């Protein structure tokens, strides 16, 4: 079951968008930190492992609800709770993993969503009315705890006006709330433990949040994409600096490491 015959012997020219995203995310991870990943997060796991193999040998990471610490990804698999993730270093409980978000003992978490807004609030719950939604999403997972996470990175698999919206229908993960002022108020009241979303990555671009207003800002566009495309695909007015560099593509070394464990081509 789940043997991917079609990927064996596939050509390894260029790189896929998921490989690019894994490399970009990997570079943001600091040595010596602890990183949490969640459901369906093969890219996030790959980014963590890549970081360990390149610049961050002392990084520790958790494979979602499996509680697996530092999976070798032997090989990389789709499901965060797959037994393959237990080819790892140690195993903690689900409660250890999730509790480490509000207690601030995990430095960085990855999360994804159906919608994101200009202040980095993320919706993984419903589109439309909560009790009779137009789209019922999977649900909150650990996202509501993100206001307690020290840092988090948002991974979006879609970048379109449907997913990058003016205001999320449901705020599953709080980002910078209603922007800089509301964020600073909540921080001043001592109710928010974390530093908010650090970064957003999408199939088109890398984005962060402007320090004062906390509105989303374009950091780089992926090779082959343009600033105009990104702006058009974003359902709110994006902050665009004068000079927007191109996202640095995967280096040959990064790709070599990535493919050393992604032997099933999950990211291809």
């Amino acid at each position, binding site marked *: *079951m789940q043997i991917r015959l079609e990927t064996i012997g596939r050509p390894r020219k260029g790189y896929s968008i998921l490989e690019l995203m894994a490399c970009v995310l990997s570079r943001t991870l600091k040595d010596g930190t602890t990183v949490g990943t969640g*459901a369906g997060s093969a890219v996030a796991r790959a980014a963590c492992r890549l970081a360990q193999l390149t610049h961050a040998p002392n990084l520790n990471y958790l494979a979602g609800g499996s509680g697996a610490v530092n999976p070798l990804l032997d090989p990389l698999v789709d499901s965060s709770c797959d*037994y393959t993730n*237990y080819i790892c270093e140690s195993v903690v409980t*689900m409660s250890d993993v999730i509790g480490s978000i509000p207690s601030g003992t995990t430095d960085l978490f990855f999360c994804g969503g159906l919608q994101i807004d200009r202040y980095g609030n993320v919706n993984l719950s419903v589109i439309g009315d909560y009790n009779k939604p137009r789209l019922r999403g999977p649900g*909150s997972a650990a996202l509501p*705890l993100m*206001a307690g996470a020290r840092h988090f990175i948002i991974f979006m698999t879609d970048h379109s006006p449907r997913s990058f919206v003016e205001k999320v229908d449901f*705020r599953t993960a709080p980002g910078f709330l209603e922007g800089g002022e509301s964020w600073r108020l909540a921080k001043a009241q001592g109710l928010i433990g974390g530093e908010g979303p650090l970064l957003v990555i999408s199939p088109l671009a890398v984005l962060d949040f402007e320090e004062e207003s906390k509105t989303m800002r374009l950091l780089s566009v992926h090779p082959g994409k343009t600033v105009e495309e990104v702006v058009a695909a974003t359902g709110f007015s994006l902050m665009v600096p004068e000079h927007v560099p191109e996202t640095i593509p995967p280096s040959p070394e990064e790709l070599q490491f990535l493919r050393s464990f992604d032997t099933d081509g999950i990211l291809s």
Partner: protein
Amino acid sequence: MTENTPKAARASKKLELAEAVSRYLPDEVESLAIGGMHMHNNPMALIREAVRQKKRIKRLITSPAACINADLLIGAGLVEEIVTSYVGFEHLGLAPAFRRFAQEGKLKVYEIDELTLILGLKAASNGQPFAALSPVLAFSDVSKFSPEFYRPITNPFNGQPAFACPPIKPQIAFIAVQQGDEFGNGILKGAPFIDREMLFAAETVLLQVEQLAPSEQITRNPLQVTVPGMKVSAVVEARFGCHPTSCHRVYHYDEEHLKLYLQMAATNEGFEEYLQKYIIGYSEEEYLKRTQSRTL
């Protein structure tokens, strides 16, 4: 220990699948907790039998990440409300029946975060009046839309706001383990997920065992027997009983069948066809034959 043989024999808790479900589940189950996470270790044999016997479930309580275990019960029209953090098929897509029933307003969803779910179960098994939750949850809409699980309180130590989640105490729990004995001692060979939290919180536990073995064998290394028989009411042997989800260290999930399910369950008609083709009127043995035959 030869002279140390008990005078009377211990009662076996082993039951046939149908008998276990009919004996321990009332026709209207107050609350049912289902173990496993994502497409792993779901107690599917017990769940399919509950579908066959049309047990109605007032409240379904899932692990932090439910999959086909919840979706099948929902699609069969048996679930009134669900307490969950996530119902989906991870990389394979959204949960079709969950989605349809919720979108049509036919399923009340108590969406809560994963930690609250775990702490609510722990509050039940620890006899706590409630679980105290971090004030950061005020900033997520879950606390607004599932207020039953996020009751505002004041932290007596600093006067700040906080939340209280009531104990989550399932009437019944379905749990799957890889190995077990007839007294309900079970070994979780792979991930424990939150199966132990569930079974300690529940009033009645039905244990689905992939491989039943003599008690001397199961309890040879007691430190790995983390499901204690005393918490288990009935033991059911079910080979490939987690199919189409995985059973850690025994078999992988059946991605092909899960995709077939996703396709069929996308409509009411398709879902009904799925039930008729694989579940209703078929034993577990027949279910396995039919799902493994690609030519039906």
